[in-house]
Each structure stands twice: as C-alpha cells, then as structure tokens.
C-alpha cells in the first residue's frame, strides 16, 4: 500500500462514525434521486416516445355532424394556434359491446365488454401523418365484417372471435382480426368504411372527428384555450367533446407519477444533507488534523497528495453510498412500477441505465467538490503554520455568552453548556443546519403520511365503501365480483323499492341507501382508460362521509353529481349538461356538483334513481348500505333483516374496508426516507459533538477535577446542542410544511384528482406542537452518545497538556 493509501485508510478507520454517516447520507440521496428520476422517465418516456414517433394528436374533437358541414370542419385546420390537423373522420362514440358467444372461453362468451368508440380512416395502417395507429397483434380489417380493437378493450383469450354492438338494434357483430391502438385513444375500434356503414345503418349516432396539434399544448389550460379556439370557428353547439393527450398520458402513466414529487423532495433534502455532512466531516478532519497535516508535509507529502488524502476520506464512503443507493433504487423501482402502473408492460418496469449513471456521477461530483474545498485548504497550508497553530479556540467570543448564561436561573452545568455554541458559532450553524434538515424531513414526512392515511381512509372507507352492513342479491353471494356486466341479462338486481321498505321496518335500521352501475355510457367521457360509470342511487347516504368539492348534491330528477377525476379529464363544471346513453336512449343531466370520487372507478357520475324512472329507464340497484342505530345489536339486526329480505332474494353481508396497496408502498417509502434522513441528521450532530468533545477534553478534565459528576457532564453536553436544536426546529417546521404543500398539488395532479381539504389539511395544532420539539429531539439524540463518552472519558492526563 502506498504511503498516501495508508494515510487515507487510517483516516477512514479512525472516524468510523463519520464514515458511516457519509455513506448513509449519500445512500439516501442517491436512492431517492434514482427512484424519482427513474420513475419519472420509466413511466413518462414510453408515452412520450410513442406520442412523438406516432405524431400523436394534442386534441381530438368530435363535431355534431348535423350542426356543421364538412367544409366547416375541414376549415378548423386553419384556426390560429393549430400547427397540424387531420380528418374529418366519421366516429361513433361509446357503443356498448359484448363478447360474442362464439368465443371458445365460456368465462368470457356473451359477457359485457368495454364500450367502444369506432372510427374508420382511408388508410388505417398509415405510417405517415397524424395519430398513426399501431397494430400489436393480427391484421387490419379488410372486409365489412371485421374490426381491430385495443388489446385491453377485449378479452385476449377471445382474439379471433366476435364483438357484438349490443345496444344497437339488430346487434351488429364484427370479427376481431387485430389488436391496434391510437396513442391518445382517439378511438378504440377501427373498421373499414363499409364496416362503419353497418353501424350507421344499425342506428349508431355518428359524429365527425378532427385531430389537431397546436403550437401551445403543454398544460390543461393550453388545451382548453385551443379547444375554445376550434369551437369558436364552428356554429355554436357543434363541438360535442374533445380528448386531450394529457388525459391519455395520465391513463398511460397511471399513478406511478404520484411518487415523483415527494421522491424529488427527499432527493433534494438528501443531497443537501450529504453536502452538509461531508463539509462537516472533512473540514472537521482537517481542523483536528492540522498537526497531522504538518507532520505529513514535513515527511515530504506534496500539497496535492495531502488534499487527495483528505478528499479520499470522504470519497470512499460516499462511493459506497452511491453504489448501494443506485442498486437499491433500481431494485425498488420494479415493484413500484408494477404496482403503480397497470398499463406498463413488464419490459418497461425498469429504470433506464442513464438515470443511474447521471445520478451516481452527479452525486460523486458534488461530493468530490464539497470535500475538496476544505481538503485543498489543508493541502495549501504551510507546514510550519500547521505545526504551530494551536487547537484551542480563541477565547472571547464565548465570554459574553458565558457571562449572560451564568445569570440564568439554571443549574451551573446547564448554563455552562448553553453558552458553548457561541464559542464556535460556525460549528453551531452546521449543527443547526443538520437539525434543520432533519426537522424539515420529519415535518414534511409526517404531513405526507397523515395525508396518505387520510386519503386511504377517505377513499377506502367512505361513500359506497363505508364499513357497514350491506344487502346484495342472494345470487351474488359468493360469486366473483363483476362476473356479469351491468348490461348482462344474467346480472342480478335488487327490487329497490321493496328492499328499502323491508329495511325500514327492521328494528335498528337508522339509514340505508341502494346503488348500482346503471350500465349507461357518458357521451364525451375519455375514450381510453377505464370505462366511465354512472351510478343510480336511491336513499340517504349522508352518513357515509361522501365529500362534495363544489356545488351541491342532486335534489331532483335530471340532476347529477360528477366525480372529480372525470370532471378534470373532460373539463366538466358545475352547471354543465352531460348526456348519458342507456339502451341507445339519450338522457341529458344537469351537473349540480363535483364530488371527491371514492367509488373505485376512474371516471364516475351519480344521479338519483328517480332520474332514470322519469326518463322511462330502469335504475339498476344491486347493493344497499345500511347504517345501524347506535343502540342496535348487530346480530339481532342481521337475524331480523335476513328474515325480512330472504323473500326478496336479498342477503345481508358485512362490508369490510379495503386498503390501497399503492398508498401503503408510498407510506413505507416515506417512513424509510424519514428514518434515514433523521438518522443522518442526528449522526451529523453526533459527529460535530464528538469533534467538540475531543477539542474540549482539556476543559472537561478541569470540570472533572472540580467535581463535575458524569450526570452533570451529560447535562452540559446535551444543553450545548439544545438551544441550537430548538431554533433549528422552530425554523424547520414551517419549511417542512411548505415542502409538504408544494408536493401535494403535483401529487394530486399526477393521479388526476382534486383532493378535498379533509385530505390536504393535515397540520393540526396537535400535530404541529410535537413537531416543534423534533429539532430538540434530533439534537439531543445526536448528542446523547458523545455526552456519555465525555462523561466517562479519562481526563486525568488531559490536565497536564496546555
């Protein structure tokens, strides 16, 4: 081993705690950076790549063919802001379908299938122009009886069998010859012109679709403005609806992007903490090694060798942290990507290599620069100065503080400790900064964790998911959920009126409401993603904590409340009208409110069952949720209810609330990062106090000789960081709140939701007050060990040295 190597190795070996801290902090920073950047690129890149190479449309607009001429629609290509346009293409939106009975898999044959939006284009397989469609299996349709669909809109096992447009008179049927899709889900069924004509003949309402790219299309607001410009160019009411590529992007990236904002926050906190810790440790090593540096130089080490020796003391543990952080970041990404984004294939559930490379090299560079600043200073220090410079701090700065502290009505050991930071203000600032970052992390994480559990509680156990006794059709007991779709004749429903009346008579019933998927489609709902659901509801659900974000609950037939995710995706506001279609019959609903959707589907709306009855349609109710009176006995109630409901083919079950795996993964990650950052912050304090104790060994010897007990020594050392910790805590808490608020909005946006105040308002006084103590706690935890060492240190010999 070279002489330099020996110096480095003994340096690393003598500072085990500091070495561990440096490895841990870089590990934290790299892990969260690799994960955040990796998730962002892994979920975003495939969509962005496809969107670019396939020349995806920013916006697809459906025009009501009866209100515009072909000339008018074509002319919208020249509206200001439009850079490219295609169409018009005929389109028939949201047609109910079933899997044909010719499917060999009986699990699927005859079952409800996704609603499908069919279009035709002159050249379906075109590899030029806008919105190029891509075939993933099979071939394009060549005859009127054939169709191609996206793979996730039809049962895989039935490929080659037929799809039936079940709500159209005559139920036209097509053979599925290909799986194909549009990157922005501009349509979900592709037929030949003759094939499309079969749907028109069968009575499907058809529109004209235009596809656009715009000069400005980065945000929802841009797209809304662009859509407005297009709508202004045609007669009023001609624009039926439009699909933004941002909705398709949200559908494609799923919820994985929700991880990104808080991972970025942790990445930044971790990196700042790394820089701080490395600065603390290396400059500390230089400061306490000044004599050593002098000796090294007198032995013939060059300045650059000395500088390298000190830089290497930080680089070795940092490299270890970087390597481990990168490895674990890549390992952790797999499960997160798989759990968060169903749309992504297994192939893309890995982090691109360049992310690991950029993060590791970047971190090493930052660490290297941080370490080399004090190291270069050490290298340039003249040997003589290094040998003669005294380690004792300059008296003077500490004197005023000691004088003031001695006046406080505190035990002497504590007032002595209280004044210590003032003797070395720079060191106190570093301790404070470490505690501050720790406090910010804790505050941020506690807020985030609280928001997660509130989100979990709200979405998983309120509204339709409320924990309660439920009543379902006896036929559904034990049957897999969703076995038959809402329009499947085999789907069992409850006789809502009779069940409600029977429940009302059972003693102990306080409130009950029935609900079910009406099977209606929503005109203008996003074409891709999960099929939208309109629930018909009957009865009082005010006890289920379902939350309204704006407007009011419906109060009359014809009124509806729309879920926030659907409202954001389509741009529905209170006061708008939406059209729903059931059994090929259109019903117009007035939107009177937007609710925080907890129903479990992406795009939902709800209306009173009376709306359907008034329109001559049958509301479909297949579950009642029952609230029992507080004094009711559950078993007695069940017995009585079962007796009353059995004749109605209804059964009593209990609804257990579910958990959201994604939120649990997030919570675990947050807890893990918080723990690591807090530990690193406390270890930062520890290494500063160790350094301080080492330099104060002489004073500690004097105190000991004067009769200071170990307990008093511990009290003195702990007090020396308490004030710094308290101040850092007081500053850190508001900063942590700011960081939490800053990540909440993008996280909500990433999952396409508007979060209600009941979820976002997390910092109650009961939470903030204990958090204010976090700084002191971190500081004391960090100082506890060295305080114990100081109390036990053998100081007899230290008294001789001056």
């Amino acid at each position, binding site marked *: 081993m070279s002489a330099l190597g020996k110096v480095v190795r003994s340096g690393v070996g003598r500072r085990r705690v500091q070495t561990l801290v440096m490895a841990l902090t870089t590990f934290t920073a790299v892990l969260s950076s690799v994960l955040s950047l990796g998730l962002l690129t892994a979920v975003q890149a495939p969509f962005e790549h496809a969107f670019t190479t396939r020349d995806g449309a920013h916006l697809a607009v459906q025009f009501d063919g009866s209100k515009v001429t072909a000339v008018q629609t074509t002319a919208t290509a020249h509206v200001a802001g439009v850079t490219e346009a295609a169409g018009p293409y005929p389109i028939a939106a949201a047609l109910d379908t079933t899997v044909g009975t010719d499917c060999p898999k009986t699990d699927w044959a005859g079952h409800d299938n996704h609603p499908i939006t069919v279009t035709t284009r002159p050249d379906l397989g075109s590899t030029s122009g806008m919105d190029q469609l891509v075939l993933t299996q099979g071939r394009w349709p060549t005859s009127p009886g054939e169709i191609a669909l996206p793979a996730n809109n039809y049962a895989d096992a039935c490929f080659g069998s037929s799809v039936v447009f079940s709500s159209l008179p005559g139920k036209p049927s097509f053979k599925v010859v290909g799986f194909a899709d549009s990157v922005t889900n501009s349509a979900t069924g592709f037929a030949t012109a003759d094939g499309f004509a079969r749907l028109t003949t069968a009575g499907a309402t058809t529109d004209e679709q235009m596809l656009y790219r715009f000069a400005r299309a980065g945000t929802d607001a841009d797209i809304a403005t662009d859509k407005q410009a297009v709508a202004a160019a045609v007669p009023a009411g001609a624009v039926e609806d439009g699909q933004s590529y941002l909705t398709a992007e949200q559908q494609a990236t799923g919820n994985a992007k929700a991880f990104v904002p808080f991972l970025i926050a942790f990445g930044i906190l971790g990196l700042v903490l790394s820089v701080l810790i490395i600065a603390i440790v290396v400059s500390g090593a230089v400061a306490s090694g000044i004599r050593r540096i002098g000796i090294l130089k007198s032995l013939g080490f060059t300045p650059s060798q000395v500088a390298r020796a000190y830089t290497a003391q930080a680089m070795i543990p940092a490299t270890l942290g970087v390597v481990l952080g990168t490895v674990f970041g890549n390992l952790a990404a797999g499960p997160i990507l798989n759990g968060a984004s169903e749309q992504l294939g297994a192939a893309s559930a890995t982090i691109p290599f360049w992310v690991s490379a950029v993060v590791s090299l970047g971190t090493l560079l930052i660490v290297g620069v941080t370490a080399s600043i004090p190291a270069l200073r050490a290298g340039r220090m003249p040997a003589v100065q290094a040998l003669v410079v005294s380690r*004792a701090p300059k*008296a003077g700065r*500490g*004197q005023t*503080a*000691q*004088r003031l502290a*001695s006046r406080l009505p505190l035990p*002497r*050991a504590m007032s002595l400790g209280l*004044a210590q930071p003032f*003797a070395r203000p720079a060191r106190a600032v570093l301790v404070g900064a470490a505690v501050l970052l720790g406090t910010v992390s804790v505050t941020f994480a506690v807020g985030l964790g609280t928001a997660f559990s509130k989100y979990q509680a709200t979405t998983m156990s309120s509204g339709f998911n409320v924990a309660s006794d439920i009543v379902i059709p006896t036929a559904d007991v034990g049957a897999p959920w969703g076995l038959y779709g809402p329009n499947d004749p085999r789907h069992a429903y409850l006789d809502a009126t009779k069940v409600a009346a029977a429940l009302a008579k059972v003693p102990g019933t306080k409130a009950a409401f029935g609900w079910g998927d009406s099977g209606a489609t929503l005109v203008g709902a996003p074409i891709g993603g999960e099929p939208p659901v309109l629930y018909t509801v009957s009865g009082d659900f005010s006890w289920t904590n379902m939350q309204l974000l704006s407007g009011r609950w419906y109060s009359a037939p014809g009124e509806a409340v729309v879920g926030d995710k659907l409202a954001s995706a389509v741009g529905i506001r209170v006061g708008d009208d939406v059209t729903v279609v059931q059994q090929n019959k259109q019903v117009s609903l007035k939107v009177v409110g937007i609710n925080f959707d907890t129903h479990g589907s992406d795009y939902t709306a709800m209306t009173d069952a009376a709306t359907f009855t008034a329109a001559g349609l049958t509301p479909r109710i297949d579950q009642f949720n029952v609230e029992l009176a507080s004094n009711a006995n559950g078993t007695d109630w069940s017995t009585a209810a079962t007796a009353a409901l059995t004749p109605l083919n209804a059964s009593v079950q209990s609804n257990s609330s579910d958990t959201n795996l994604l939120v649990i993964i997030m919570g675990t990650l947050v807890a893990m990062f918080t723990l690591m950052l807090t530990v690193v912050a406390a270890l930062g304090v520890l290494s500063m106090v160790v350094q301080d104790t080492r330099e104060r060994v*002489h*004073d500690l*010897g*004097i*105190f*000991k*000789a*004067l*009769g*200071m*007990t*170990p*307990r*008093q020594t511990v009290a003195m050392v702990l007090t020396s960081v308490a004030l710094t910790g308290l101040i850092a805590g007081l500053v850190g808490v508001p900063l942590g709140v700011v960081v939490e608020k800053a990540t909440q909005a993008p996280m909500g946006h990433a999952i396409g939701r508007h979060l209600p105040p009941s979820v976002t308002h997390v910092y109650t006084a009961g939470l903030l007050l204990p958090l204010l103590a976090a700084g002191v706690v971190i500081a004391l935890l960090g100082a506890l060990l060295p305080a114990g060492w100081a*109390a*036990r240190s*053998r*100081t*007899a010999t230290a*008294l*001789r040295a*001056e």
Partner: protein
Amino acid sequence: MTNAPMIDVREATKKYDDGPPALAGVNLSVASGDCVAILGHSGSGKSTLLNLIAGLDKPSSGSVTVDGTRVDQLGEAGSAKYRRASIGMIFQFFNLLDDLTVLDNVMVPAQLAGMGKGEAKRRAVELLGSLGIERHVKAYPQRLSGGERQRVAVARALMNKPALLLADEPTGALDSSSVEDVRRLLLDLNAEGQTIVLVTHDVQLAATTAHRTIELVDGAVARDVVNSGSGAGLAAAQARR
C-alpha cells in the same frame, strides 16, 4: 484531629498498557494538617500518585483511603462528589477556564456542588479578598500574571473547604518572585490547618514548604524524610512526634 491518617495509600500500583508500571507498590500515610512534598524526576509517577489520591484515576492494585473513604472503590459519580467535598487541586498550568471570569471560575466548584449563586459569590469574593486579588474578580484569566492566576486557582481549589489540597507543580510555570508568592500562600494555608500534598521538582521549595519530603524513583518511594530545615510547619511536625 483524629489519629487515623488523612491519606492512607497501601501497596498502590499503576500499570498502563505499555512500559514499566508508573507506580510500583507505593505506601504513603499523611496525617491531617500535614504538608507533604513529593519529589522525583520526570516520569517517576508523581502526577499518577496525585491522580489516585484525587480519584481521577484508579490503581491497578492496592488501596487509596482518604479521610476514611476508599477512593479506589468509588464509582464515577461517587468520585466526583468526593472531589467536590474533600479535594482542591491546583496545577502547573493553572487550568482556569478561559471563557469564565475570575469570579465565575472560583464559583464553579461550589455551584456544581449545588450551592446557591448568592452564597457562592459571597464566599468567592471573600476568598479572593483574602488572597489579595479581589480587584480582578471581573477580569478574564488570560489578562492576569502567572502568580495571580495561580492565586485564582488556589481560591477555586479552596472554594468547597476541602480537607485536602493537592498541588501538582504549582510553581512550575512561574517566575521566581511569583514562586515565593505561592510558597507563602501554601505556608499560610498549612499554618491554618490545611492538609497539603505538593508535587514538585524544586528541592528548595519542598524543603521550605513541607514538613516531610517523599522522593519517588521509578514509581516507588525511594526516600521519606522529615524536613529539618526551616518551614513554618516544622514545629508542628515535631510536636506530633
């Protein structure tokens, strides 16, 4: 004055990890009110012996009893309380706390022992007055001369009225006039009944201050003689025989 010795060191041995023992079977008995000087070359174990008596260090074997207390058997907290109550120490390099004023330095031992601030201050001012340095109470130690600093250290050592004053080369860093100053101070204290153990290189100082001189060679007592020369305590020493 009791018959039991104030200090009773029996077969005390101190070994560090490497090299020969710093102390090898030392026996020492010091009566209350006595002033004993310990002489010896550098490295002969003088400070080690003093530290054992102060409870700052523990013997590898043997026993150390001070004022009836087995000092070698005390725990960390116990030995701190023992030092507080029974021991005052002064050193070659004074070991004053640079951040504290003279007054605060002197008050520390009493405050650590739990004495109220007002009372501690009164006693400190009184002590500093009796040592003739009351005008420096507000000053910081670094502004004082070596002799003055050592006076402050003595005041601090006496703050809790210790049974025993241990001085490790108290004149080692002083010029000759200050040496004389400190010598007189120790003589006066002893004359008032203060038991003193004085470690020094200075044969002259030992002879003129102490009743008894012990010489350590390689960690063992080589000589133990009663001073026959001058020294205020001489008469008292002879009287006790």
